[in-house]
């Protein structure tokens, strides 16, 4: 019998494979990013030449765009793997499932959310966000988007085997997303008004750690149910 893979190695193997597929596919990276840009530009276009209106709605628009683009990219997280049978193979691997799942989620976040976070300041500029809000926007995105990925993964895992997965997915995870959205926009708005937003940030951070610790297990359990 060959030596069992260390957890670290297993994590790395999956992470690398997923990143490679994403880079090959490119879609996975460019799509959410493009979607993010599109939503924001379309708003800028359609709300038009009212800079002060734009300014007030900027934190909301940017965060909603980020949330939507995460939501849409989520389906890919397990769908392809489910269809071509890789998911079964992962579940049958000797490693604990939660490690593999975590690797997949991290890869997903790196591919979909990180570029988006890096691009956000530019779009914030387009949306006329108040300069004091930049740091808050960056921090909330940095802490908030992983929560979206982690919680979303649970929803995807639950619905991956269902033909009518899509709707359910939104129905299942949006309720879980809304608190993050409210907290984050509140934080950015507070920042633009120069009031303290550390409290909001602390709650977001707490949510992040809580979901980081629990979500992989929930996803593992959900995947087992789905492939049954």
């Amino acid at each position, binding site marked *: 019998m060959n030596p069992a893979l260390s957890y670290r190695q297993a994590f790395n193997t999956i992470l690398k494979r997923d990143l490679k597929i994403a880079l090959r596919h490119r879609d996975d990276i460019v799509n959410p990013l493009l979607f993010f840009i599109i939503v924001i530009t379309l708003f800028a276009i359609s709300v038009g030449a009212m800079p002060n209106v734009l300014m007030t709605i900027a934190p909301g628009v940017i965060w909603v765009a980020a949330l939507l683009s995460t939501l849409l990219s989520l389906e890919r997280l397990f769908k392809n793997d489910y269809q071509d049978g890789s998911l079964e193979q992962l579940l049958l691997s000797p490693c604990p499932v939660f490690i593999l799942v975590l690797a997949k989620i991290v890869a997903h976040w790196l591919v979909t959310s990180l570029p988006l976070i890096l691009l956000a300041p530019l779009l914030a500029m387009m949306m006329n966000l108040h300069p004091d809000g930049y740091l808050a926007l960056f921090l909330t995105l940095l802490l908030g988007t992983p929560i979206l990925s982690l919680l979303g993964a649970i929803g995807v895992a639950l619905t991956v085997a269902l033909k009518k997965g899509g709707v*359910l997915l939104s129905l299942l995870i949006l309720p*879980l997303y809304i*608190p993050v959205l409210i907290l984050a926009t509140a934080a950015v708005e507070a920042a633009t008004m120069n009031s303290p937003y550390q409290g909001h940030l602390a709650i977001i951070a707490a949510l992040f750690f809580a979901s980081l610790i*629990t979500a992989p297990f929930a996803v593992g359990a959900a995947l087992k149910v789905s492939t*049954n």
Partner: protein
Amino acid sequence: MWKWLHPYANPEVAYQFTGKLIPWFNGIAFILLSIGLFLGLAYSPADYQQGETVRIFYIHVPAAILSMGLYFAMAIAGLSALVWQLKLAHAAIAAIAPVGAAFTAIALITGAAWGKPMWGTWWIWDARLTSELILLFLYFGVIALGNAFEDKSQGAKAVSVLALVGVVNLPIIHYSVEWWNTLHQGATVTKFAAPSMAMSMYIPFVICFFGCAFLAGSLICKRFQGQVLARNSLRPWVKQLALAEDN
């Protein structure tokens, strides 16, 4: 405790046990609700600030608290379904979800009706209201997910996971009034140490609350029975039951 519980984990025993509970629950709920509502709606004093609208309180708060409590109960059922593979817990989840959703809807509607005179608007996007709305969506999600699976037990397991995850929303609802400054009233009845409220309001409230709780219990038992039957339709005792029904 397991030894004591074990016989009730048998679907047939559970079916009969809940069958015996229903009439009791019904009776208690009827008595408590009639007393409580009479005291609350007719007897207790009108509030010096809020006037007669304060009477919505006797429906709104029990419904709101139960909406959360039932969700918690559902999550516990989910946990036991996942950890101990308790098949009856599947039926319990399916039984609780729609009842919980109904109480959530009642809390929302009565809250909105109360909000109009108090705050001048039916709805605002504030933290407590939004999180209660989210709770309703969570219930919908649980119901929809359960229905989406053709395979009942597979669906039940999926639902268990979701119910457990959704529990995070409960503290958010409860503490939202402290974390955010909102229009909604802070904790008054649920402060255990010293309810900051007149006894003439507190007692009818407590009676109403337990009345609602027993009503919920009876509804859930009824639904639970149906679910147990549906999930065991191939078992001989169910077939016998059906035969007895026919005759």
